[in-house]
């Protein structure tokens, strides 16, 4: 009796604290939304107002009049390209690491784990000169290539954990039925791990979607830039244009937010089993 009252009280306190924390954590995004709906005089009103007095969509109209949707499309192209190429590169080594034992397995795995810790800024200049020498600077393909050293290792680490989760019996059954490795992969392993593979691909997609430094350095033509590179222009110019910047920020946040929320189970599974238990 005493114990259950204590747990109930503990639960109530937990809910109260979680609600309070949720409000604090969500506040910056709510503030972003509110500001994007305020008129310019109200954005620069003193003292500040919390709820918009009158709601306006003028900033969304203004951002639509810029190259925003072109940049949005660029982001989709570069992010999809990075995701697909990371998966193509990562899927086979991930399978080998999860199913086979071989002499250099451990050192190779350590190298891959170290790769995902490499600082992007340290490779900025060499990557720039590499892309320029090959002639793919300021191209979608060049930007995609520049992301691969960072996304492909994560793909291996994630996928390894998903492949390791397939019971051996399923593969052995396919082998007994006379399926080749290729057939087993296409008909058995691929369908089972498809959600995991999709989540990994989307992780690489989102990495690219958010990335700023390489995007603004390797894409010199403004019309080819991805969203982060486009949005930062609003700040680096003489005075920040908060209204359209916030409208654009909000629209740029919606795709990743939906993807993260829908796929949270897979991200969490892949991240934790890949990085924590690996």
């Amino acid at each position, binding site marked *: 009796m005493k114990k259950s009252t204590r747990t109930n009280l503990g639960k109530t306190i937990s809910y109260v604290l979680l609600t309070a924390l949720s409000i604090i954590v969500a506040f*910056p995004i709510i*503030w972003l939304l509110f500001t994007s709906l305020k008129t310019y005089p109200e954005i620069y009103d003193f003292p500040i107002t919390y709820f918009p007095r009158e709601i306006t969509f003028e900033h969304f109209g203004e951002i639509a009049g810029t190259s925003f949707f072109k940049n949005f499309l660029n982001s989709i192209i570069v992010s999809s390209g990075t995701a697909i190429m990371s998966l193509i590169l990562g899927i086979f080594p991930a399978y080998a690491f999860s199913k086979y034992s071989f002499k250099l397995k451990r050192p190779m795995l350590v190298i891959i784990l170290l790769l995902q810790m490499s*600082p992007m800024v340290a*490779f900025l*200049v060499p990557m720039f000169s590499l892309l320029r020498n090959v002639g793919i600077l300021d191209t979608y393909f060049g930007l995609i*290539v520049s992301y691969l050293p960072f996304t492909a290792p994560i793909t291996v680490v994630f996928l390894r954990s998903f492949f390791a989760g397939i019971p051996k019996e399923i593969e052995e059954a396919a082998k007994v039925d006379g399926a080749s490795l290729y057939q087993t992969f296409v008909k058995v392993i691929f369908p089972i791990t498809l959600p995991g593979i999709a989540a990994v691909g989307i992780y690489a997609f989102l990495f690219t979607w958010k990335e700023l430094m390489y995007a603004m350095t390797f894409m010199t033509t403004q019309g080819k830039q991805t969203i982060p590179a486009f949005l930062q222009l609003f*700040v680096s110019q003489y005075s920040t244009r908060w209204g359209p910047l916030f409208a654009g920020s909000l629209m740029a946040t919606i795709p990743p937010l939906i993807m993260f929320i829908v796929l949270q189970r897979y991200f969490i599974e892949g991240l934790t089993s890949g990085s924590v238990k690996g």
Partner: protein
Amino acid sequence: MRQEKRAYKMVLPFLTIIVGLVVYLVGTNVILSFTTEGGKFTLLNYVEVVTDPVLPTVILNTVLWTVGSVGGQILVGFSIALLLNRIDFGEVFFRSILLILPWATLDVVAGVTWKWMYNDMYGVINDVLQNIGLIDQYLAWLGNTDLALPAVVIANIWKGYCLAGIFFVAGLQGIPKQLYEVAEIDGANPLRQFIHVTLPQMREVILTTLLLTTIWTINYFPLIYMMTGGGPGHATETFATYIYRLSFSFLEFHESAALSNILLVIIVFIAFFFLKKLNEGEGV
């Protein structure tokens, strides 16, 4: 044997392309860092970097930025994980806000939003703090050399604690329930249960999380770049922003290569330190 051959066939294309690329990039940096503009061998780039009057500030800022951000992220992440572990319903709702929302926000967007909230005239943070009586006049958070670093650290705690939270949620779920039942029978109160059951069981998860967040924080660039650009002066300059500035504002490619190599060595050193700690734990 056939299996081994097949494994190498699967791994080698990846290693050739990705590791080859990284080796090329590191190699380029090494060559750049040891040569002059004319291509002659020199150690002067390292001498210049080490004697750069800004370097002590950069090192101190990087340490404060990393310790503050990682400490805060681990603390917030752990608290939220503990709370989420106690509730029975509404978990998806709270998880979506507390473990996903800041993580899903674009770094650039987080940067401009916090920059706006810290604004010295129209910033909501000044307004709130004044209303509850903590400050009596508006502060220029990002324009003040003493306040700028703590301000970006707070923004970074918000942006980055989710991963720690996710790792800790998974870690807590992995602790066998019987351990708590035994501790309860022994009369251990919740605090003692936390110290003697939860923390030791979470050792590996905490170490891994520390390793990953530490290295990601040292490398993390866009938030500072958007909020302060490393300023005012060099008040929020870290390795990441300074190497960027050396490269693309000052066009000092040889010096930035030298500093990049120093950063790489530091990161590898930290990684091996943690990996060694993790391996020690396995022996116990």
